[in-house]
């Protein structure tokens, strides 16, 4: 039962309907059952791992809080984090490390006989492990009280709207909301439904329509340079539509239950720098990495150059978190290098912009920075999307070859679209940009929607629903669901 299915919509309707009927004191039971049923329909064999991780994190949180001395709390915190990372490492990274060591042994002539193990990656493990680590660290730092109610804690750990692909929530935000009695509220229901509709629209009309086109290029044995350039840029749009749709649906589902989840995206492809991009893309992961990796590593460093090491390490963790493969490691490293290079050359770039005259036309300067940032992000995504390092380097070489950008080649590459696809994308492009324009000029498109008359609101939502039904395609899981 994925988000994009009639079964899920029926399931959600039943849960929301029941939620507001049962007394508040029993609602955690309903949410817990719903979360486990939802997870079981996707990955029943890993329910025991989810239960063990939940129980372990609950107990270690209480034990940490009971310690009187700071040192003891810290020691237990490290035990907790190590066990959680071990679970993640075993399932997600065992074969990556094993294969890498085997390759290294073969290259250097050493004997290495640890066999390959068939290990399936448990669904959502990267997300719930990071959420668990933040809980354990926050309890040890005294920022979060250890939750004594096992039921509420389990719901926090496995809350079905955000279990599979986030947003990664902190206990201090989610737990109090779960414990507060939520009342049936028209605004919440209306907002939740609209976010879900918008998510379905982006997923079925953009992400899943683009996915086969992008895959046809990246799976091709000999794509042309122009095809790689176009497919990489389309992949960036696909990935954004896919992941932000997943977050929209998660946020919408939670809001139907009166619960506010964190926003995960803020128009990332309008970022004016790589630092700005990471403040707009997968925000809850960026904040997590900032608080639990970057800040501890950067703390106490008095020189910018000393902090660069912390930046590179943080982006390496980000890369490894995304996938157990060297191309993800390299993808993370590329972003780290972008960030460090961007900081180190900031003053020279500002002087150059001033010399060119950009400071006299700030709008042009802004759009120039947006275009450059988008291209840097796209280039890194060649590594994100490729299946191996060799393929990634070959695609990256094609991406930066000037002839790949020749208009004639690009026009030929556009032929990968059918006429119907092209028309649909043009219409959807206009709709999405209208939405983003409203976001930029009015603050929030959702507040703007709430101010519209009932007729306008219904008409917009009907347009989105009918478009998704008539022209949407589905069948692809969410890209980030695989992490």
């Amino acid at each position, binding site marked *: 039962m994925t988000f994009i299915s009639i079964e899920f919509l029926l399931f959600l309707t039943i849960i929301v309907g029941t939620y507001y009927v049962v007394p508040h004191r029993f609602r955690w039971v309903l949410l817990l059952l719903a979360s486990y049923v939802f997870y079981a329909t996707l990955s029943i064999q890993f329910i025991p791992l989810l239960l063990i991780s939940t129980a372990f994190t609950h107990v270690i949180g209480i034990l940490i809080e009971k310690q009187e001395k700071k040192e003891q709390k810290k020691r237990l915190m490290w035990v907790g984090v190590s066990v959680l990372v071990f679970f993640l490492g075993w399932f997600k990274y065992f074969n990556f490390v094993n294969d890498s060591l085997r390759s290294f042994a073969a290259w250097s002539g050493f004997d290495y006989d640890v066999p390959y193990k068939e290990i399936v990656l448990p669904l959502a493990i990267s997300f719930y492990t990071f959420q668990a680590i933040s809980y354990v660290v926050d309890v040890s730092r005294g*920022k979060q009280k250890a939750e004594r109610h096992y039921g509420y804690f389990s719901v926090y750990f496995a809350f079905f709207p955000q279990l599979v692909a986030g947003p990664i929530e902190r206990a201090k935000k989610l737990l109090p909301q779960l414990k507060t009695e939520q009342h049936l509220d028209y605004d919440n229901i209306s907002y939740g439904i609209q976010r879900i509709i918008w998510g379905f629209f982006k997923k079925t009309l953009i992400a899943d329509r683009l996915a086969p086109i992008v895959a046809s290029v990246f799976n091709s044995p000999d794509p042309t340079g122009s095809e790689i350039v176009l497919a990489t840029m389309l992949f960036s749009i696909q990935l954004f539509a896919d992941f932000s749709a997943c977050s929209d649906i998660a946020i919408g589902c939670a809001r139907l239950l009166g619960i506010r989840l964190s926003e995960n995206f803020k128009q990332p492809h309008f970022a004016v720098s790589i*630092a700005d991009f990471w403040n707009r893309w997968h925000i809850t992961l960026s904040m997590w990495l*900032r608080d639990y990796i970057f*800040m501890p590593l950067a*703390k*106490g*460093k*008095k020189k910018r150059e000393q902090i660069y090491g912390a930046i590179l390490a943080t982006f390496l963790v980000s890369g490894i978190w995304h996938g157990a493969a060297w191309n993800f490691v390299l993808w993370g490293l590329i972003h780290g290098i972008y960030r460090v290079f961007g*900081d180190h050359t900031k003053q020279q770039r*500002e002087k150059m912009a001033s010399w060119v005259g950009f400071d006299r036309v700030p709008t042009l300067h802004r759009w120039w920075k947006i275009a450059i940032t988008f291209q840097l992000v796209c280039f890194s995504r060649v590594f994100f999307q490729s299946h191996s390092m060799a393929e990634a380097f070959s695609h990256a070489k094609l991406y930066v070859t000037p002839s790949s950008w020749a208009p004639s080649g690009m026009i030929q590459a556009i032929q990968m679209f059918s006429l119907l696809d092209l028309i649909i994308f043009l219409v959807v492009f206009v709709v999405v940009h209208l939405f983003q324009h409203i976001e930029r000029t009015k603050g929030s498109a959702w507040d703007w929607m709430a101010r519209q008359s009932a007729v306008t609101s219904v008409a917009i939502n009907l347009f989105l629903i009918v478009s998704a039904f008539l022209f949407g395609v589905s069948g692809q899981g969410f890209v980030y669901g695989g992490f």
Partner: protein
Amino acid sequence: MSTLEAYNMAFKNGLELEDDVVLEEMKLGESTEWDSIGHMTLIAEIEDAFDVYIDSDEMTEFHSYQSGIALLQRLGVDIRS
């Protein structure tokens, strides 16, 4: 050296500022020097100068010259000339 002078010194050292910069008007993100990386070097200087520990929540509260003074006062440092 007064605590205010020490605070100003930490600002200048942490952010590698010229002498003529008007510190009182400085805000996080509004100058080249005080960006997210500069913020970390500034926090390290201030922690050293006043022997305090600033945690991640407090770091986000510290977004201007004035809010830094308010934060330090909350941490028990009386900033005065």
